[in-house]
């Protein structure tokens, strides 16, 4: 069946009874939305991302626009525009604005699934790494570049002693 307002397939079928008279309407989702007959029920990731970002951004624009990941250099605003993180460390660097976003998307904020055995064994190293990354952030903020370079190398080495680069 075609939509009464355009050529799309009608998927919204409405029966109204006005003054005892039955009136039927057949519309496609777009026209139905336009006529405000249909509430948006799809989970639209972009819309959710956008609305969460907007909520967070109003009021704290300055603080957020300053946020930059020390590991990959991506700015929070760049992440906001692309919807993609730059590196795993972004989840630390942008933790504050990211947590409410994750909660909106997943209705959950803590991983309860599989844990890689390898990573678990290295939980201590991970904790140490987080501390080192924090120190690195501070060093960069204070423009202590030699110290930052030293910390960066130390982090790389602790991350994966057997990895390239």
């Amino acid at each position, binding site marked *: 069946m075609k939509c009464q307002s355009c050529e799309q397939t009608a998927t919204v079928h409405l029966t109204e009874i006005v003054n005892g008279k039955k009136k039927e309407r057949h519309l496609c989702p777009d026209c139905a939305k336009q006529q405000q007959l249909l509430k948006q029920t799809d989970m639209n990731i972009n819309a959710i991302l956008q609305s969460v970002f907007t909520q967070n951004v109003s009021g704290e624009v300055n603080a957020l626009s300053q946020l930059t990941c020390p590991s990959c250099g991506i700015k929070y605003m760049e992440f906001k525009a692309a*919807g*993609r993180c*730059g590196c795993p460390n972004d989840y630390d660097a942008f933790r504050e604005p990211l947590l409410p976003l994750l909660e909106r998307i997943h209705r*959950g904020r*803590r*991983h309860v699934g*599989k844990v890689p055995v390898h*990573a678990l064994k290295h939980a201590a190293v991970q904790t140490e790494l987080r501390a080192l990354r924090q120190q690195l952030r501070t060093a960069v903020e204070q423009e202590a570049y030699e110290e930052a370079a030293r910390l960066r190398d130390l982090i790389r080495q602790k991350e994966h002693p057997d990895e390239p680069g």
Partner: protein
Amino acid sequence: MNLDSLTQNSGEWLRAVGPEADIVISSRIRLARNLSSFPFTNRANTHQKAEIEQYLQGRLQKLDIDLQLDYFNLATITPLDRQLLVERQLVSRELANSEGPRGVAVGANEIVSVMINEEDHVRLQVIRSGFSMDEAWQEADRLDDKLEEKVPYAFSEELGYLTACPTNVGTGLRASVMLHLPALVLTKQIEKVFRALQKINLAVRGLYGEGSRASGDFYQISNQVTLGKSETTIINEIRDVIPQIIAYERQARQTLTRESRPLILDRVKRAFGVLKSAAMMTSEETMDLLSSVRLGVNLGLIDDINIVVVNQLFIHTQPAHLQKLLGRELDSEERNSERARFLRNRLSEMDSMN
């Protein structure tokens, strides 16, 4: 494994051998994983992507598994071969169309594929014929364990596996089931099913994933939530809803044969007739007609052809498969006439066998 030999068969997922294979085409598990010490693919430069590829490819070769993995370098194979891998669901369209160092490791039978430098560094996929969610998960889980022994994944105790897109973080798991639902489409009940699925946070997509049209009445149903639920919970939620959809589709099929048998028979026979005699055939029209024939076979309305051949025709008439089978590149008009010729030949072979 040789890409030219792939076209001779159809891959395990299209063999119609699994449970409920008349309606459930395939069950798929995808895991998104990343290396902890590299930027995500979108932020990595060509040099880093080459390093990631080389590193992962090396580790994949050394995995302690009884499965031979063949690696295809997507940056060096032809666009036609990339398209072939997409049609076989071994590679996503996104990976095929992106740039820079990237590739895919494919296991024998095409059940396992591991994409490198997709949106995430690793996209591990297991795809099985029919309704076999648990088998697919067990295999993916086992492979993931083996890979994790050799590769330091980006993982946080709080947020789980860290992924480029926040929508995948946590388990990094996408569980999906591909269904053939022609009767729900014909009886116009499909939208109702979609709305119900969306309410419980499941996504519905077409045959080739995100943004693709549901041609041939094929629909993929998958989870959206990846954080705050365990893998088992996510898989069970999908697994529990599928039997209901199967039941609706069967009910719709019964209604059709009970109330509109002549109409359905006509539709099936016409579809078969057109496939057997047309001189030009687009990929879309082929899918739609084959869908009617597939329904006809499953309803016992037509016995000129069996389901395995119908499934195979779905994939062999896709653009890249057709060109590989004919051994040359074709423009779109040539493809349409060669596709029609291919269908005529295959279907008259069937006739002479009966």
